[in-house]
């Protein structure tokens, strides 16, 4: 396989995943109903999973679906449903003064920065990042093995630090949620 040669199936897959991602992303910010926005987010996540599979990163794709679509967005929806945000009228007043103008500037800066980066740097397209010579370095279990080795040797410190951070966050959240009751009983005890 030469450096740049596109097979029709891979182009089709790319177009599909790109459409899923972009349409979903636009949906998230343009739809009024929060539940519909969450559904659009799921669509984006699926698009990303398809893109991962096209790159032979099967494990990442599966984890993407399990963790993001299967757990995180479910939690979003859970909270939306619990709080009943969905049935309330939408506020047209801006919570922050001039936030639309700031948003426009932010978008311009980001997009402009990305375009400049693309123009300035060497932009590689079509190359499979987890493959060499057209064949993936590792499919299936090998893929997991590569990932596991990298995480538990080269990036061990970062991995453990992330784990500790997450635990701290969870413990903190539990503490914050529980503190009210504890202080109440303490005050009552005094």
């Amino acid at each position, binding site marked *: 396989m030469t450096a740049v040669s596109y097979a029709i199936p891979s182009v089709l897959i790319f177009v599909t995943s790109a459409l899923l991602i972009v349409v979903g992303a636009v949906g998230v910010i343009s739809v009024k109903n929060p539940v519909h926005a969450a559904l659009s987010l799921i669509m984006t996540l699926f698009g990303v999973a398809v893109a991962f599979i096209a790159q032979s990163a099967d494990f990442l794709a599966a984890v993407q679906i399990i963790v993001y679509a299967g757990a995180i967005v479910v939690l979003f929806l859970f909270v939306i449903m619990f709080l009943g945000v969905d049935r309330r009228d939408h506020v047209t007043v801006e919570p922050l003064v001039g936030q639309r103008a700031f948003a426009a500037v932010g978008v311009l800066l980001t997009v402009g920065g990305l375009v400049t980066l693309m123009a300035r740097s060497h932009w590689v397209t079509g190359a499979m990042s987890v493959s060499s010579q057209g064949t993936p370095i590792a499919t299936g279990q090998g893929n997991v093995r590569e990932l596991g080795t990298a995480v538990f040797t080269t990036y061990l410190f970062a991995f453990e630090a992330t784990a500790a951070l997450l635990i701290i966050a969870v413990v903190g959240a539990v503490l914050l949620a529980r503190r009210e009751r504890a202080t109440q009983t303490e005050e009552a*005890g005094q």
Partner: protein
Amino acid sequence: MNWLASVDPLFAHGVTWVVLLIVVIKVVAGFSMLMGSVILMIWFERKAISDMQSRIGPQRWGPFGLLQTLADGLKLILKEDLVPAEADRFVFKLAPYLVLLPALVTFAIIPIGGTLTIAGHPVMLQVVNPPMGILLMLAMSGISVYGVMLAGWSSGSKYPLLSSVRATAQMISYEAALGMTIVTIVLVTGSLSVHNIVTSQAGGVWHWNIIRLGLVPFIVFIIAITAELNRPPFDVVEAESELVGGFHTEYSSFRFAIFFLAEYMNTITMSAIIVTLFLGGPAGWVPSVPHLRWVFPILWFLVKTVGFAFCYIWFRASLPRFRYDQLMDLGWKRLIPLSLGWMLIVAGFLVAKGWGFFMGATVLLAWTLLTRAFEIGAVRESGAESVLPTVGERPLPGGVLRSMTDEEDD
């Protein structure tokens, strides 16, 4: 195309029309098998339950009432399709398909037999053998939450909403235990591929994961998967006495039929998954009959799967429903620590015997600590500390008063 061949030997000589045809036939065969078995499963469940309850059950349509499901399906399709005025129309119509899709996809990864040779091509009797393997099943069980959740929410009615909140919490809780047991299996197999999980269990009953892993993961898995399925005794999601019909209260006609179909599809698929992961899938004794050797693995697979399907029916007929808080306790306080601890022990033994025993001791220590923590938590929730402190002076000391009033609790 090399990596395709590493996934499935069918593609070893490139993708030709014959290969494509075989793939299409496999997909159609898998789909129709699942559909056919759903019809039989519904009949089987109704018949078995009626036998257990000393009733006759369906008997009018076809021999032994076999066509009852078809008659029910026909009736449901002819019914009026209602959408509640309060409903979110788009999501309401989308939700049944979100339930159906994961049910269909999960079945595709299950190997139902050995490898056949058709027109010179080796054909695995498995619709697809993706490299991510068993993770696909986890992903699909994660996705199947959405169908239930959105169906309940979009109905715009309070009972379905309550049901979907319950369903979400329940399915997310039990997914963790499910994932942990699957990790144990993957550790022993050394591969994610379902095909490899099955082949690693070949060579006799002693190599099956149910025995090789020491029964605990099997028990955790079967409990967790029953909870994932929302089947009795974990069917708080559609507890008739509390929530009318649960998340599908507002559904009628064909959309209701889809929910029903998906539920039974899931039951069959999960029985098959249990067989695949723990009982060696199609493994079993094969007599040396010429030309027919390939039939026996399929028969073994069917026998085992029907056995588990019967177990689910049995559960439904004999076990009372869990209370919601008991269900959460079982999931978070028992199954997740148990599956995590067992995974550590298995991992330890895979490295070396010494590590295995070390891990066993560590897990035992953690277990006692956890039990102590649960005790303290239980006391805080319902014990002496939870009693409101007095305002002013009591005529009797607190301890004496408590021993007088709380006698029967101790």
